[in-house]
């Protein structure tokens, strides 16, 4: 006889203004199990879970607990049923302390702080969380902030924990600790739904797997004995051609294009860039690996000129550009694809042609006196659209209406043309579906052929390994070492990312 699931979602359909996010989805989760919800970006996993958590309302379908229909119209309803969700973007108040963040919404009337402190500290100790409850959240690193999110859920006595891509911001060692927590939590009779697009993690922790694609659940089975190839097939719908590492060869005598020497940058008394030095050859991809928040963002901005470094030298093609403004660097041929395209690289309400103009509004090529040369601009934009196969009705389409992949392609296309000497890429394929990822990887490889220096920051190790000629690992503003891909493996790079020096790692190997 089939056991009644702890929670069950039946026939869930959810529409947004322009897309069908979930289509007739059935899903169940049992007590004592970890269910991995696997699928690539855009498959509908987050949407489905947000419905379960009451953040979204489904257009059709039902949710049942222990066989009985329940109404979940808000997170409060979900929490009353014992469901808690830890989202990719944390719901924390940076300006408040850990304690204030945890007790928000759980206290009434006068706050008895002594009492609250006691209760919260108990849970911190019980799950061995190692965190100062009086610290301000804005001062915590991302791994610690995630712990606060988890504590919030535990404080509310959650029995079903939904975690949305929790490992994106963790080092391999921190990921292991998280998996330990998940197992011990589940062993106590609770349940966890783990949303991810990373197959390795699925294999590591899940009891059962549900694969989603295009808003539907395409398969559901126990984790035992499943092969990665089968999973990847289901996720994408066809075989993935992997770009293997080792197909890239390093030329012996590459001319140095970018020379970075002793970069230093301090903010709020914290050293963000610490005596950073490296070279990049022409036509070489230098991959920058490391957990987010160790100075990679600032390195990119320092190279681009949008932050002022305290000291150091940046030399591009034998020109000292250390004191050049962003505008001057653009003119010198520096292109930059930032990690937050919405904040830094595009204007959603402007059309594609205008976004192409964005970086080049001072360029005489596009102006007729004070006026914008609209025909020339349109021709140029259409060129980029065709060259990079961007799906859009035309260059007068608002960029905000394009899919994430197409937006990124436009930005990459634009920067690739501007960056005639140096291309800075920060997580160029984050959040994109596999098709777009492959496109952009192909573009990057192509740019190497043209002899440009490419600095690529990424947290996706597979991307780093497959595209880089050399890999530099950053930790707390320093470079822990620069290696060729064949000199590293996952464990080694994990240790480097966690702050172990090259020597320590080498000693560890022996």
């Amino acid at each position: 006889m089939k056991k009644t699931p702890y929670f069950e979602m039946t026939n869930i359909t959810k529409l947004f203004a322009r897309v069908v996010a979930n289509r007739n989805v059935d899903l169940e989760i049992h007590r004592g199990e970890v269910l991995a919800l696997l699928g690539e970006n855009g498959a509908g996993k987050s949407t489905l879970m947000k419905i379960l958590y009451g953040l979204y309302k489904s257009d059709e379908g039902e949710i049942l607990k222990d066989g009985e229909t329940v109404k979940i119209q808000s997170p409060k309803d979900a929490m009353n049923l014992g469901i808690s969700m830890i989202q990719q973007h944390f719901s924390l108040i940076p300006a408040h302390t850990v304690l204030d963040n945890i007790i928000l919404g759980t206290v009434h009337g006068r706050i008895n702080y002594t009492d609250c402190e006691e209760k919260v500290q108990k849970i911190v100790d019980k799950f061995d969380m190692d965190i100062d409850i009086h610290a301000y959240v804005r001062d915590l690193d991302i791994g610690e902030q995630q712990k606060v999110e988890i504590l919030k859920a535990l404080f509310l006595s959650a029995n079903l924990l939904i975690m949305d891509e929790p490992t994106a911001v963790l080092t391999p060692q921190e990921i292991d600790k998280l998996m330990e927590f998940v197992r011990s939590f589940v062993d106590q009779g609770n349940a966890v739904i783990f949303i991810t697009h990373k197959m390795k993690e699925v294999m590591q922790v899940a009891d059962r797997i549900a694969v989603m694609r295009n808003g539907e659940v395409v398969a559901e089975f126990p984790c035992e004995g499943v092969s990665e190839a089968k999973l990847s097939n289901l996720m994408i719908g066809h075989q993935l051609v992997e770009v293997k590492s080792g197909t890239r060869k390093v030329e012996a005598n590459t001319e140095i294009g970018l020379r970075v020497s002793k970069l230093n940058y301090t903010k709020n008394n914290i050293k963000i860039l610490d005596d950073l030095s490296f070279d990049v050859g022409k036509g070489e991809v230098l991959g920058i690996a490391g957990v987010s928040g160790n100075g990679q963002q600032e390195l990119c901005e320092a190279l681009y000129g949008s932050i002022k470094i305290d000291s150091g030298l940046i030399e591009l093609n034998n020109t000292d550009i250390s004191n050049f403004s962003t505008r001057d660097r653009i003119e010198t041929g520096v292109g930059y694809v930032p990690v937050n395209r919405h904040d830094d690289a595009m204007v959603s309400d402007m059309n594609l042609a205008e976004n192409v103009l964005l970086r080049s509004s001072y360029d005489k090529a596009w102006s007729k006196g004070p006026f914008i040369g609209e025909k020339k601009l349109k021709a140029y934009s259409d060129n980029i659209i065709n060259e990079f196969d961007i799906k859009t009705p035309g260059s007068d389409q608002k960029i905000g209406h394009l899919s994430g992949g197409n937006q990124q392609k436009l930005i990459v296309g634009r920067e690739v043309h501007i960056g005639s000497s140096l291309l800075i890429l920060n997580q160029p394929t984050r959040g994109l579906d596999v098709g777009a990822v492959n496109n952009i990887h192909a573009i990057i490889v192509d740019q190497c052929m043209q002899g440009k220096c490419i600095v690529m920051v990424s947290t996706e190790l597979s991307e780093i390994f497959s595209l880089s000629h050399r890999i530099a690992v950053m930790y707390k503003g320093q470079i822990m070492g620069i290696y060729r891909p064949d000199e590293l493996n996952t464990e080694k790079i994990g240790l480097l990312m966690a702050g172990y020096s090259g020597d320590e790692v080498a000693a560890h190997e022996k």
Partner: protein
Amino acid sequence: MLISLLSRVITLSTPLMIGSIAEVYAERSGMMVTAIEGIFLIGAWGGFVGYYLSGQALYGILIAMICGLIIAAIYALITINLRQHQVVTGTALNILVAGLCAFLQRVFFGIPTTPLTVEPLQKIRIPVLGSIPGIGDILFKQNMITYFSYLLIIVAIYVFYNTSFGLTVRSTGENPEAVDVAGINVSKVRYTVVLTAGLLGGISGAFYSIGYLGMFTDNIIGGRGWIAFAICFLGNWKPSGAVVGSLVFGFAEALGIYFQTLGTNAFFPTELFIALPYLLTIILTVARRSFNTPAKLGIPYVKEG
């Protein structure tokens, strides 16, 4: 003489105190009450009309509160439920209220031959405390709205830091999504603070007409609602900052009146003193370098899905 000056400082600070504390709560939840000038004005009008027609100051204050509440409710509806722009909505309401008050004066009273007046609120001396030399004359010989403001300050500061409501309000302006996810209704929080600002702003407005001047004129508020708005800002969004800010501006105003009565027009033109509070705001706005602006101030909360 100094005593009377300082006493006047307290008097003039009162409406700014009440208004700016209300604004602090509202802005901490993410709402800029840009209709504050209109709320003050309609409070002044309602207070006057209520007092004049009933003969009782208390009814005046009550009517003032109701009038302020109505304007705040319209503002809340458009900015919270309909998620429209706060500056724009506030401006529309301010224009409407300006016209409304003058119009309704005509409706109620026609065109009077002599200006209508009421007896301004009496200064009440509190026994025992009022006898303390110096402080007693300054703090404890004020009208009842001022005494209300003392109570308000204490309650406001306590609630802000020591209660669930205070924590919720402070969190809402920083990250309404976090508050939503914690199971609290963000709209409800914002409605509460905005409507309260309507009530309190109404009292502040009434202070000018029935607590101080004894009459209603179209220009009675003359930008002081905006000064309360500015004080919230300059006080770094803390109730204690609002108190200090209000005292500073009350002092500037009192000083202006003092010099005007001295008739030193020869040395300083009167216009300088009239402009003093506004100049002060500009200088302080520039001087203050770092702010604890609530992260989501002015941004409507849009729930997805």
